[in-house]
């Protein structure tokens, strides 16, 4: 009785403190610009959309293609501030689909020292953004693995996650080779994405390498954010190699890791860390009078060979 009464009282109090309501405010009209200028890659397609209203009393639907602008005026310019006299190169674009603009000079490649600026005008709205290629030093990237832990034998079946629907194929016996790879990069950028891959596939009795986080999604990148007090990115990955039990030691080749590193402009760090739903003072963007990501980035691929150890 006491619990029932207190529950009723507490529920009544809690209910009286919550009220559904609505806010109906006109949308703030603005443009959305997106493009990523990868170093040494062709100039990207520039995407132009506009924001839409998210308030009101009742739910509503609309055709999502309406968000793409049609007939926007796009001015793309490029210049190299490190090579005076600075000449601005105007790059013409063509609208291949509503809101998608492809640079006409397809032979141009994105260069390290170039700045790319766009100004878009559409329906009385104007937005602009500037992309720069961040500095990237491949020498600063270090990969090491001095923590070989064990070699054991086991039967491998449905080993990874018994709740997973997609199970790897049945293998009789395997040697499990476990190691740990450290990747370290010292830079001034605020964000780095790293992907581990391998040139060995899991086919039959060949060796196979997988990583701890790849248990769920083999293509997952690890996103690293710079700690202001320690300007070094560090990532440690557990690496597991599987060798058929019957394979002789002589036949066991060292594994080769493929490490893909992506370094974008600093603004991307805030963008990536927020999912857009959480209340933040401002949506991360580098677009003036708009939203979106119009940035430069560097992508690099490094190969690293993990030596083979055998512990009795």
């Amino acid at each position, binding site marked *: 009785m006491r619990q029932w009464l207190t529950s009723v009282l507490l529920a009544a109090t809690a209910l009286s403190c919550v009220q559904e309501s609505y806010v109906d405010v006109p949308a703030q009209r603005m443009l959305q610009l997106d493009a990523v200028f990868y170093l040494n890659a062709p100039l990207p397609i520039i995407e132009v959309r506009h924001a839409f209203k998210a308030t009101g009393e009742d739910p509503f639907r609309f055709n999502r293609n309406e968000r793409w602008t049609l007939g926007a005026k796009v001015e793309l310019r490029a210049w190299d501030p490190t090579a005076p006299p600075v000449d601005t190169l105007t790059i013409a674009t063509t609208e291949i689909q509503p809101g998608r603009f492809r640079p006409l000079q397809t032979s141009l490649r994105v260069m390290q020292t170039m700045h790319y600026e766009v100004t878009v005008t559409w329906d009385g709205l104007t937005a602009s953004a500037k992309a720069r290629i961040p500095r990237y030093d491949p020498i600063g990237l270090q990969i090491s693995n001095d923590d070989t832990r064990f070699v054991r034998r086991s039967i491998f079946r449905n080993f990874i996650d018994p709740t997973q629907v997609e199970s790897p194929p049945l293998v009789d016996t395997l040697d499990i080779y476990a190691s740990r790879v450290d990747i370290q990069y010292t830079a001034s950028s605020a964000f780095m994405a790293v992907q581990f891959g391998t040139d060995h596939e899991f086919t039959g009795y060949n060796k196979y390498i997988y990583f701890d986080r790849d248990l769920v999604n083999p293509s997952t990148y690890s996103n690293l954010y710079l700690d202001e007090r320690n300007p070094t990115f560090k990532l440690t990955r557990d690496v597991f190699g599987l060798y058929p039990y019957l394979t002789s030691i002589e036949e066991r080749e060292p594994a080769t890791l493929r490490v893909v590193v992506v370094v974008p402009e600093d603004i991307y760090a805030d963008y990536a860390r*927020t999912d857009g739903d959480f209340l933040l003072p*401002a949506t991360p963007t580098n677009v003036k009078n708009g939203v979106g990501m119009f940035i430069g980035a560097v992508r690099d691929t490094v190969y690293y060979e993990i030596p083979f150890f055998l512990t009795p």
Partner: protein
Amino acid sequence: MRQGFLVLAGILLFAGHLAAQSYSISGTVIDGQSRSVIQGATVRAPQLDQAVTTGADGWFELRNLPSGLIRIQIRHLGYVPVDSLISVSGNVRITLEMTPQVFDLGSITIEDQAIQSDLLTQTPLSTVYIPQSRLRQSVRLGGEPDPVRFIQSIPGVKTESDFSGGYSVRGGRNDQNLILFDGMPVYSPWHLFGLFSAFNSQSVSGLEFSKGIFSPRYGSRISSVLHLYATDGSRSKGLDELNIGMVSSSLTAGTPYSKKGSIFVSLRRTYMDPFLAAFDRDEQEIDQRTTYYFHDLSAKLKHTWSPKWESDMLMIYGKDRFGYRTVESYSNLFNSGIGDFEDFRERKNTGLMWENSGISARTRYKGEFWSMEFQTYFTRYQSESTDDSDFMLDFQLTEKVLFGSQILTQITRENRDYQLQKQFDQDIQDLGGRIRMTWKQDDSFTFDAGIESIRHWFTDRGTLNEQTVITSDQITLGYPAVDLVTDQYLSRLVSIDLTSQETAVHAGVSLNYTRLSVYPGLRMEHYSHGNHVKLLPRVNAIYRLSSKWSMTAGYGMFRQYVQAVGIDLLQVPVEKWIWSSPSIKPMDGRTFTLGTRMVLNENLTLTVEGYQREFRNLLSLDPVELYAAVGGTGTFVPVYRDITVAGEGRAMGIENSIEWRANRLSGRFSYALSHSQNRFQNINNNQWFDSRTDSRHDFSSDMLYRFHRAWIGGAQFRFKSGQPVTLAYSAYDRIDDPLNIGHEFDNPALIWTSKHNHRLPDYHRLDLFVTWQSRPYRGYATDITFSVINVYNRFNVLAINTTTTIFNTNVETSVRPKHRFLGQLPVFPMLSIRIHSPS
């Protein structure tokens, strides 16, 4: 009382002649029944437009009086007013008695000049003195009046919400307010997550609150000074008072001893524990327990060595502890007969504790011209918050597998253990001492100087441990287990041990002329961590146009070396204190005030005061850090890193107040028009935005009415403009992966354009209370108070929880706007009983 009149009559009989010399009337105001001194009584000479307030020892002195018959009025809330004529032909020393009144009808009063209080003297428009008797006649949220909550109805003082104990003064922040208990600084003195202050109303004999250019003898904070005076036992008679409320009860006792001193003790304890225990669950699969309690204690020993020397010792202690623990476990048997099973267990443990403690010793000397005060104290504030969770899954599956040409029985066992441990502890310890001396030549010149030094010890620990351990083995022919340790993230995020010294010297003078009073002062501060030195000039001036009309102006610079950053919304003890350092500059403030006061008639007073303020070097959490602290891990205890952004603030406003005091009815209307803004690096694109507590219009009224000998009623109404919040009006197709390194989706997301771009609905609330007091029975009287908070159940919005959903299909975008308003206190009746010895 009769003795008092006899004294007065005697003086009248011996009044001889009028002389051109100036004389004084000094003495003590005492309670005619208990013979104890009365602090805070106003002694006024209306013909000469002079008034003083009695100090803690009941002492008063009126100077520069002409000879002849002087009319003296003595007023104190809770006592029958005294009007007397005193014949002055020389310096007169008398003892004046006041008779306790059954009910007092005083309102919040802005008293005139006071000898003891330079706050009241120098900033009369910005300072308010509230005696305990007035505190008792107020709405009782937790069953008893709250001294700190009371000041939140003063114009210029704003709160975040009904639930937050903290307050901001004239566009400042909560951490800019100095709170002193008998001169001892106290950090974060709140119970029940800010709903009550940690000061038991019985232990507070009165409070003084200044929001203006306070005296240079106060430092460490830049916005306001709240000085609570501890009750002593001089008016007590053993067991003094028992207060029974719906949330807590308190007991006070005190007694004078050997005519030399007194002792006083006050205790308070909540009894929410059994209430919360009603919700505990102890079932087969769920074990859930919630605990919460708070208690506080204050004790004061006062001893008078001689008429000129007295000492006191004060001790305070208050603690809150909250704990929530839940264990959920179940077992699932399948393929029974083979022994397969799935065991699941989830354990969560959240705890919060915060504690205030302090001890102070003080000695005062009061001579004819000189007075001195020596005080030393040790105060400590601790907070601990922990959030542990442990998720474990045991799994066993038996299967038949093909091994070569054999069919074997394979048993797969897996154990998953996910552990998350978060802990956030802070410990602030202050050892301080101060010496203050005052030399009062006469009413026209007073010199005040002192030195103060505080040793701060600060410890901060923030820890986040996260780990997932998967142990899996497949038992076939005895092959060993395979252990995988994944997602191991162990990090001690913050670990600070800081010792610093804050030293200040101050000096000020009081210059009083016929129409003009000027109070210039200077404070010089040094803070050791970073070697910060600053000279802080302050000046106040009062110009009397007539006996009923005065103008005031003030200018002051202020500085503080510690800031509290955290979540804006709730005043929970998980805010982070950050001290100045070589890289973090102290917070500076600058204030200018201008005001006027008019006595419209004997019962009606109008005051108007404007202010303009600037703040520098304010700290705030980096917005992304705030997200990481409160949202990133999705648990209650935030994990802060030392990443802050610096900013500034500005505020201006005008406060108007009209007070009246009639026989049965007294009250006050006040209206404040104000605007306050902030600007921080990396927030709102470095642009100014309205601060969280900016409410443009603020109206409040308080009324007390005695409608019967034993009945008194009161009402309090408050209106303020809606607080600013940040709201998204638009959305866009946020590309999750513009780098094209994983998956690319067009995922609609809300657009947050600017901070505090939306206003909540206006806030208003009416509170009523009525008190009935019995006649004394066997030496004790009983008060029964019935309060109703938010009488008409206004839904005042605390926050907006936006759960708008937007999703794309192949051809369409669907938008479902949804906002949920979280409300503040609904209609809330409270009953409390007070059993006390008549005073």
